């Protein structure tokens, strides 16, 4: 029989990149493992939400569940979209794999949520620990003034101060900021050892890193610490300004394992110009979860959930393990520096250190 999976993601609009990456990753997975999961044929149905649109997400989920009778849902880049479907998946007992949305508390919205990506706390707290251990004792945080940014600020501060470090200033930058100079100047004025930044991808990240560089912060010995800022799909656009930025994240396309190389190659072979980043790997591992669930339980939601709640497997990002409590994967967090790769001439996130298997540290916050 056929098991249907509805993927709700962005295939149009400013975030269309995500949908494209999910799809490519799913197809790469299917290419490697075939359409069969156990006795079942897996079929994916893609739906476009176009951005953070909870009402559209809910409508699409309803359509998928009622008309297409899907057995699993997947996708979800933005938190509100995921939250909007919580009541539906509760009622229909549909396991739903989140490929990206990174707010810890989503999984509290329904027991049917599983997350194959990461949470903000998961990558931020280890970064703070590591920074302290590197001898960075004073930090200024500069985050975009919206939910995820503030979560990141809190996570960093909690972890850093627990270690004994000091956050000497916490700047919240309005989301609509285009010129970051004032904030960068403010950071500079306080001469911390490092600045911890959190910005939404795209233009803000571009603007912030540019300004960080142009105003000579690196030269003044103020290090840049971040998380997703140097992710691969925008990395080349940042240009030389990105070199030397330090980030902690769960995935780097330059991860050294064979599985990672293979994943990259599959993607690149199948789709010209495809770039692997954390969204691709989130979808790739999410697809793995769905396959495992389908294999074990077909279309029986609760049983499927049971089957994978402590699943362990090796992913292109490293070893993964489902946490039965938080339903978010436990994974390695890597400390990376941006470098220009000698062979390809491209910028890469070079892994410099590993913080082994971290769970969702934000769950109990």
């Amino acid at each position, binding site marked *: 029989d056929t098991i249907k999976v509805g993927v709700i993601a962005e295939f149009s609009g*400013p975030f269309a990149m995500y949908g494209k990456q999910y799809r490519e990753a799913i197809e790469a997975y299917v290419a490697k493992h075939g359409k069969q999961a156990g006795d079942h044929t897996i079929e994916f149905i893609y739906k476009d939400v176009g951005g953070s649109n909870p009402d559209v997400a809910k409508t699409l989920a309803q359509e998928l569940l009622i008309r297409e009778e899907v057995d699993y849902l997947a996708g979800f880049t933005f938190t509100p979209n995921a939250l909007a479907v919580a009541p539906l998946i509760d009622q229909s007992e549909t396991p739903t794999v989140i490929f990206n949305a990174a707010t810890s508390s989503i999984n509290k919205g329904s027991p049917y949520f599983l997350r194959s990506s990461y949470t903000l706390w998961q990558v931020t707290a280890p970064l703070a620990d590591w920074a302290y251990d590197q001898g960075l004792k004073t930090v200024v945080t500069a985050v975009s003034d919206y939910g995820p940014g503030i979560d990141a600020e809190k996570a960093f501060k909690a972890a850093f101060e627990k270690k004994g470090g000091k956050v000497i200033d916490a700047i919240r930058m309005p989301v609509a*900021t285009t010129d970051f100079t004032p904030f960068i100047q403010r950071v500079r004025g306080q001469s911390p050892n490092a600045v911890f930044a959190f910005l939404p991808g*795209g233009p803000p990240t571009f*603007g912030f890193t540019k300004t960080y560089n*142009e105003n000579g912060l690196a030269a003044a010995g103020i290090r840049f610490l971040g998380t997703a800022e140097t992710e691969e799909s925008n990395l080349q656009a940042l240009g030389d300004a990105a070199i030397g930025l330090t980030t902690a994240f769960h995935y780097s396309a330059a991860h050294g394992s064979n599985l990672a190389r293979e994943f990259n190659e599959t993607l690149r072979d199948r789709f010209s110009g495809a770039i692997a980043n954390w969204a691709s790997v989130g979808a790739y591992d999410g697809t793995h979860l769905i396959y495992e669930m389908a294999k074990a339980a077909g279309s029986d939601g609760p049983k499927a959930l049971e089957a994978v709640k402590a699943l362990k497997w090796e992913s292109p990002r490293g070893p993964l393990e489902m946490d039965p409590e938080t339903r978010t994967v436990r994974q390695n967090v890597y400390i990376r520096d941006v470098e220009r790769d000698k062979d390809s001439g491209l910028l890469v996130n070079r892994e410099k250190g590993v913080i082994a298997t971290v769970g969702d540290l934000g769950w109990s916050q």
Partner: protein
Amino acid sequence: MPLLLNIAVDGIAYGMILFMISVGLSVTMGLMRVINLAHGAFALIGGALAHAFTLKAGLGYLAAVPLAIVLVVLMALACERLLFRRIYRLGELQQVLATIGLTFMVIAVVSRLLGSSLLAIPLPGILQQSIDLGFRVLPLHRLLVILLGVAVITALYLAIERSRFGARLRAAVDNRNIASALGINTDATYAATFCLGAGLAALGGILGAELLPIDAYYPLRYMVLFLIVVSVGGLGSISGSFAAAIALGILETASRYLITDVGTIVFFAIVMALLAVRPAGLLGKA
């Protein structure tokens, strides 16, 4: 004291970038009175071409930028002949609709061809450096924008607010039929002005890309920003846009320095207050 100096320096530098990216709109919307929401689309095309020329075709910055602008002007000319010539005569709401429709199509084409991620336009080495002002550093690139901004405002002031061409253009905008009946070639006047606006959009898009990076959704993302500058400046006045851009640049920078937390709210509240007191904008003609 250094704080005030910082605000002044950064505010003016930012204001000048605001001016450069919105002056084209001030020409098409302010002078020609077309609600031209496609302004950003021309900036986007300029930026996308510059991106393709530098990164894909390997041209140098100094060759790529003028080439991109020239191409945008040519495209604008074609666009004017095919579409805008008819758009001028429509009602305001229809103009909104038509130019948004056009913008959608440009976005769709750019994202089809170049994807929806950032389209970087790498600066040449010299422009990436910074100069030391003594109390702080200023990126050289911003200095260039300031100088170009001054050049543009001077040229436009002379060409439009002080010249016969300007008077003929304003006459044509006030009443096309009558202007035409009095011997003004309104079609040509409009076409020339429109191309000027589009060329300035492209120039502003490329130069402003260091702060407002180009990507396919650029025209929608920054539409409000362009509109704010033009409306605060006042329709029909290039010097108004200039004054507004600098004022807004300083205002925004000051709010970022001084009242980070409620900066956005205060910024818009001040813009509202300003427009409430001066509904025609800083230098607008009522």
